């Protein structure tokens, strides 16, 4: 884990480290002459299908509460205080802004997963978001080449019965959850496992600017027979505006 947590710092060093970890897996598909395929390993499971995040871990945020540094804690406490007082304070989702990673994970809508040897694609019904997780052994872009995106850049590899997904490069506009901002240093490592009940995504978030220590959370998904449908959050259909004090109000 410590090795993975340092990956965002040294992407160039990280790839060989991950490749080293993969040597312990019994079977790997390799195409000689294709460096990117060198790290493709045998998948432990296939997540292809439709899933639905379960309650109560799924709604609007992550549990347990984040281990915030004092300055960040003040922001979060202010948001909690104002929301407890009945104000939709600091509510960017309510203005149809994209959630991005990791907030998208907390939306209680179905997701559709398509898995191949080199890619896991997750389609989120919620606002038609898509996430691409590359399993072909590529490293993250060099820090100077990263273009911040809502979903960030995700690479994955198999660690025995676990799919390990490493994400960096998330833009800083959305909060991790309302009231928990992050910096460009946010680094997320997910460990996905298939269980008889569904699949479990253990999510470890680190951002030394905000967090005292890595924030370890979890979401569980169950198989669903839902068929995904289009969902656009259209501002002209949205009956809310944000006032000068940052409070979302119906109109």
């Amino acid at each position, binding site marked *: 884990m410590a090795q993975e947590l340092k990956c965002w710092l040294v992407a160039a060093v990280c790839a060989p480290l991950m490749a080293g970890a993969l040597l312990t897996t019994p079977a790997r598909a390799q195409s000689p002459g294709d460096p990117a395929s060198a790290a493709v390993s045998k998948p432990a499971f296939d997540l292809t299908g439709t899933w639905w995040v379960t309650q109560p871990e799924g709604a*609007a945020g992550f549990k347990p509460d984040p281990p915030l540094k004092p300055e960040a804690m003040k922001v979060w406490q202010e948001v909690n205080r104002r929301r407890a007082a009945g104000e939709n*304070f600091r*509510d960017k989702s309510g203005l*149809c802004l994209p959630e991005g990673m990791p907030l998208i994970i907390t939306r209680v809508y179905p997701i559709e997963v398509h898995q191949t040897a080199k890619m896991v694609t997750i389609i989120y019904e919620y606002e038609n978001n898509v996430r691409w997780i590359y399993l072909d052994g590529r490293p993250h872009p060099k820090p100077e080449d990263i273009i911040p995106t809502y979903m960030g850049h995700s690479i994955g590899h198999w660690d025995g019965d676990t799919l390990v997904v490493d994400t960096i490069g998330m833009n800083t506009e959305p909060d991790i959850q309302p009231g928990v901002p992050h910096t460009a240093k946010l680094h997320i490592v997910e460990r996905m496992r298939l269980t008889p009940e569904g699949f479990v995504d253990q999510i470890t978030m680190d951002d030394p600017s905000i967090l005292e220590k890595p924030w370890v959370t979890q979401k569980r998904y169950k198989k669903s027979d839902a068929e995904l*449908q289009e969902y656009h*959050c*259209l501002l002209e*259909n949205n009956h809310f505006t944000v006032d000068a004090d940052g409070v979302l109000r119906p109109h």
Partner: protein
Amino acid sequence: MRFHILRISLAATLGLSSAAWAHHSAAMFDATKTNTLVGTVTQYQFENPHAWIYLMVVNPGGTQKQYSIEMTSPNLLQRAGWRPATLKPGDRVTVKIHPLHDGSNGGSFVEITLPDGKVMSQQRAG
């Protein structure tokens, strides 16, 4: 005088919070209170990110108030049996809502009794 408002306060006992259904925070709604409104549908908007019911309620004194009632998204509603034609203007219905904290005429949808007596929530079947 045909319509009236019953105000009933009770603890929210639904399995899912409105936070789970909304694209925005549910802080503006008082989930500890459920008010029952009896009135006539003036508009039913079945569109993302949220469906809305506009309900004209006549108070005992004869004055009219229109309530704006927010539902979850059509995506989730259709999985709970809702359709674009489930309601039409003129329908007389009974609607339970979690009211807005600020006391204005609106709330978060909880449950409806349709003109034919059928009761519908936003709970997804299964």
